């Protein structure tokens, strides 16, 4: 396989893996919590690295995912104190975790390849160089397999707990009443989010992951009122944006993840303006029509 094809496939898989939990984040309005998670998993990676001393260890993934979930817990604990607003709690927690991570990296891992740049920005171009060998045979890039596994986990979780996810997202009180714990499902979803963020960090970088999660989900949200259709169209948008994004990035010789993020934003903005269901133009026309109807009514009543 040529490396462009490999990069495209990795980009598509990363995008879909991010878009799936992203749909639920958009519906719940907790996308900024996921932004916090994508920053704090760095601390988990660093801490796990100190224990294993190996950048390829699966323990890194476990550690980082755990820190991601811990972030959610700390944010919620702070919010429960009612001493600050909910978004201030997010804004206070993740810079601290992130600062600790940066401090540890600069202080203790100077001579190790744990580059803060690549963690934050990611570089898909390098993904095909890191090969995975099975029984001595080169089977493909490592990132492809790790992301494929994460995508699989996301798909399995969402299809197994589809009903639970749906009911806790739309009506948490009702869910609790019929015996489905919204808290358990919420933490399950957040575990997925941090696992996906950890998996995506070296191809996409931790700042853009949130765009990969929210962009396609929000685009789909603007087009439909049905959850299943929303999931489906989010996946399609994710795949399309990343295929076009990779091509455009090669054409301009620039950052791939950045290009895909720009496309995610552009498509979302376009749909926001022209969507036939919730778009800006549609809303404006509706308003105009109501105005006319009201004027007409007013005229009729004054005539009488």
């Amino acid at each position: 396989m040529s490396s462009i094809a490999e990069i495209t496939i990795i980009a598509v898989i990363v995008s879909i893996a991010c878009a799936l939990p992203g749909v639920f984040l958009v519906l719940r309005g907790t996308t900024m919590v996921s932004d916090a998670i994508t920053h704090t998993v760095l601390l988990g990676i660093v801490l796990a690295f100190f224990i294993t001393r190996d950048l390829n260890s699966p323990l890194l993934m476990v550690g980082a995912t755990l820190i991601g979930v811990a972030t959610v817990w700390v944010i919620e604990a702070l919010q429960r104190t009612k001493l600050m607003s909910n978004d201030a709690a997010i804004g206070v927690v993740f810079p601290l975790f992130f600062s600790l991570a940066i401090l540890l990296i600069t202080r203790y891992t100077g001579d190790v390849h744990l580059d803060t740049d690549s963690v934050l920005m990611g570089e898909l171009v390098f993904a095909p160089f890191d090969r995975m060998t099975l029984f001595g045979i080169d089977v493909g890039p490592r990132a492809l397999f790790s992301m494929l596994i994460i995508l699989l986990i996301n798909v399995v979780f969402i299809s197994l707990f589809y009903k639970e996810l749906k009911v806790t997202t739309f009506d948490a009180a009702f869910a609790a009443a019929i015996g489905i714990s919204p808290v358990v499902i919420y933490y399950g979803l957040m575990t997925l989010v941090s696992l996906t963020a950890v998996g995506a960090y070296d191809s996409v970088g931790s700042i853009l992951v949130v765009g990969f999660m929210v962009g396609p989900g929000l685009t789909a949200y603007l087009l439909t009122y049905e959850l299943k259709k929303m999931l489906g169209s989010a996946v399609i948008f994710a795949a399309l944006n990343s295929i076009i994004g990779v091509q455009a990035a090669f054409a301009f010789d620039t950052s791939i993840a950045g290009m895909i993020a720009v496309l995610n934003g552009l498509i979302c903005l376009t749909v926001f303006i022209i969507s036939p269901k919730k778009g800006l133009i549609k809303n404006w026309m509706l308003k105009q029509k109501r105005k006319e109807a009201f004027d007409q009514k007013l005229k009729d009543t004054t005539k009488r």
Partner: protein
Amino acid sequence: MWTQITAVLNDYTFQVVALGTGMLGLISGVVGTYVTLRKESLLGDALSHSALPGIGIGFLLMQRKEFVVLLLGAVVSGLMATGLIQLMSKKSPVKFDSALSVVLSSFFGLGLVIMTIIQRNPNAQQAGLDSFIFGQASAMLTRDVWLIVGASMIMLLLISLFWKEFKIFTFDADYGKTLGFSSRWVNLLLSTMIVLTIILGLEAVGVILISALLIGPSVAARQWSDKLSVVMGLAGIIGAVSGAAGTMISTVGVRIPTGPTIVIVLSIFIVGSLLFSPKRGLIAKRMKFYKKQKAFRQQIRRLEEEQGK
């Protein structure tokens, strides 16, 4: 250790940088008070990320690092991002934080695209993407510090001039409108001040940590008072102390980055305030709870004794 600290304190470079970070802490504490009270804490995060394309375009136009042009570019793209976020969250069913994250990441992505093109262009100097992300307080020049001090003075003056307008629109925007104040102008002025503070801070602490500097001081200060002027003053002091102390620790120590150290010092202030504040603090609340529990138990015992008779 002690001689080292005094040596650092007398060092000219340190004095310049500490003045810069201290002043930055002060102004972001003061401006940040409005941000947290208006419950727009995460807007700062979005704004700092979305300044990147503006900085990139400014660099492309000038082909070198002209600080004022970069600043202007950053302000323009920051304000554009704010406008987009407001438009999306007000004119459609899109939730505020979804709009925030989409705008944040696509602006940052655009910035990354522009920056990568600049860096791959062999004729151009390095645009300094690194220093944008993490900040480089130690590289602050005297000129930059004067810019920070000057801009902060202007903003402090504006705040004292428009004190009552800002106050009304922070706490009760509708009431402000009925009094005949123009909400558009007040909001634009406030947003511009927030954007300016963020962009001044980018060089010192970087894109990710500047939002902490904006939120942190006022969250800590809010625990000690219910009065806007007191909270704002305290937030300024906490910000300034964190900035200067963080700079000192990172200068005295070996291989300690300035930005993260400032945030950690600031976080200690926050945790301390949350725990020890006499009125709202967690410890005070616990104590009050125990006292009530004790009083209640005594009451029950008394009742039981009375019934026993």
